[in-house]
């Protein structure tokens, strides 16, 4: 794999102080992610997945080690600079969608642009519309989250992640709340974004099934990388979706 390094992690450690005990969540993580990769980070609970995700997402800083996001060293940045970095470089997709209630799909997608000054109202709307059509939700702009299915809500969330044209989409158990059919739909969309538009995706999950759709899997255990493998034959989510028994209509 060649190309630009989007993520560079060098001996990342993260310790928490719980009372008198020091809990070592990450004990030296080193790996790089290149542009255009679709990486799944796997591990059971307690393996340090979430801590790593927080650091990758610039929500948290490592205790020691060096983390470069798109060539920028994160550890020296202030709170405000981190916020700016999150806004421009990262598109978050959460397990529980985290859409604003009683707010239309379009407004939800526009949200990151609110914190990106220099865009006019019409530009914002245009970009949000484009992002919504990328996730195939044209015509649903004015729907409220409670008028959308779980899969549709997650697609609104993906559109929101795409709207600022980030260097990386960071998904946290993005299919965790969905049934397998809808999960495959979401994965098909992720694969499409990765393959056709070359989006770099880092997908945290504990389901091996989901990991099979990615190009690379990083396995964590006890705060260390235990396995980092390229996936030679990537499964197609579209085909997997087609192979599912037809939905029962009753």
């Amino acid at each position, binding site marked *: 794999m060649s190309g630009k390094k989007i993520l560079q992690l060098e001996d990342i450690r993260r310790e928490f102080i719980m009372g008198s005990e020091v809990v070592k969540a990450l004990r030296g993580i080193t790996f790089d992610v290149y542009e255009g990769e679709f990486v799944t980070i796997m591990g059971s609970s307690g393996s340090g997945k979430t801590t790593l995700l927080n650091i990758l997402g610039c929500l948290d800083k490592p205790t020691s080690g060096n983390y470069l996001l798109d060539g920028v060293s994160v550890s020296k940045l202030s709170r405000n600079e981190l916020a700016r970095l999150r806004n421009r470089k990262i598109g978050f997709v959460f397990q529980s969608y985290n859409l604003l209630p*009683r*707010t239309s799909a379009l407004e939800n997608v526009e949200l990151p642009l*609110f*914190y990106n000054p220099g865009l006019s109202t019409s530009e914002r709307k245009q970009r949000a519309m484009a992002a919504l059509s990328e996730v195939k939700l044209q015509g649903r702009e004015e729907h409220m989250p409670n008028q959308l299915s779980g899969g549709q809500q997650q697609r609104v969330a993906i559109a929101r992640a795409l709207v600022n044209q980030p260097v990386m989409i960071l998904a946290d158990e993005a299919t965790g709340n969905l049934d397998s059919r809808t999960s495959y739909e979401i994965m098909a969309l992720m694969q499409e974004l990765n393959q056709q538009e070359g989006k770099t995706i880092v997908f945290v999950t504990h389901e091996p099934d989901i990991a099979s759709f990615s190009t690379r899997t990083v396995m964590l255990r006890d705060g260390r990388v235990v396995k980092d493998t390229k996936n030679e034959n990537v499964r197609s989510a579209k085909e997997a979706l087609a192979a599912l028994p037809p939905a029962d209509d009753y």
Partner: protein
Amino acid sequence: MSILRFIMLALRALQRNKLRAFLTMLGIIIGVAAVIAMVAIGQGSKESIQSQLSSMGSNMITVLPSSNVAGGVRIGGDSYQSLTIEDVKAIQQQAEYVSAVSPVASTRGQAIYGALNWPTSLQGVAPSYFDIRKLTIQDGVSFSDADVATAAKVCVLGQTVIKNLFPSGESPVGKVIRLNSIPLQVIGTLVPKGQSSFGQDQDDIILTPYTTVQKRITATIYFQSIYASAVSEGASEAATNEITGILRTTHRLRPTDENNFQVRTMEELIKTLSSTTSLLTILLTAIAGISLVIGGIGIMNIMYVSVKERTKEIGLRMSIGARGYDILMQFLVEAIIISVTGGIIGVILGVTSAKLITVLLGWPTLVSESSIVLSFLVCAFTGVFFGYYPALSASRLDPIEALRYE
């Protein structure tokens, strides 16, 4: 970063929670309306107290002759004669803070009508004396400047004199009484004034033109006193100084000379007036302050609930790039909008209810612009003050914890 974005954001958030926004506003609305209505009632009663007190003659100034030194011997005040018509005219022409002036030439005598007689006080005054002392004619008329010029033999009687000379209840107007053998025609009667604050019967009095007393009875050119009205209670001191200056000139006193007269104001009355009104102001300010603080606590309460309730939203906003400042502004602007909108509605409601109070209850009210401006500013400040802390605590949330908040 334009503030407009935050205003739009806040308006949208409030739109989604209309009822709650309204209930929060209600605290401010009632606070501001109460302040304005209360101050209007206060100002109205202050005004009416003031006019009542000035009807008691709180702006009255008296000039009395006083002691003087003649060859090392002090001569007593009452017997000393220094006030003349020249003094009265000088005050009338020169003093700016004096609205009316009248000399008083008084004497005592036995008033006789038919078989009845009564010892009383005869006061020779100018027509302006009625205004200065707030005396009102009950029947008949008062005497005029023409009567003064001709030293007319006319008089106005107080009620005590009438009671003693006309006990049968017949009208004294038009009758002729005698005083120290001078016949005086009664042309009017006075509305009773009762006792003065020092126990003197103010109705035991006969008023005539001062020329009549001076030329026909006492044969003197001096006055026992001069009464004057300052243009307002507040001008009493200025008027006093003015009169003193004028009289020193007319009396040709050298700078080293002591005054041979004294000028007195109704100081006690003025003090009562100012302490009453300042007490009223303090009371109203306290009530105003309390109601606005309660409104402010309402805002703070709701903003806290709102921050708690929207913790997850805050976490999300932070994860997609909101800085602490953005979150702070979001909640602060929301609080300010609530309080300012509430303030505007409160002003309208307050002014309306003040008018209603006047119409329905007949209480005097006076809506002052300063109370509107002040209460509005205070409520805007309240919004900032009470909205700031919840907004600040929202902006300091840890995005990771906020995102996982349930």
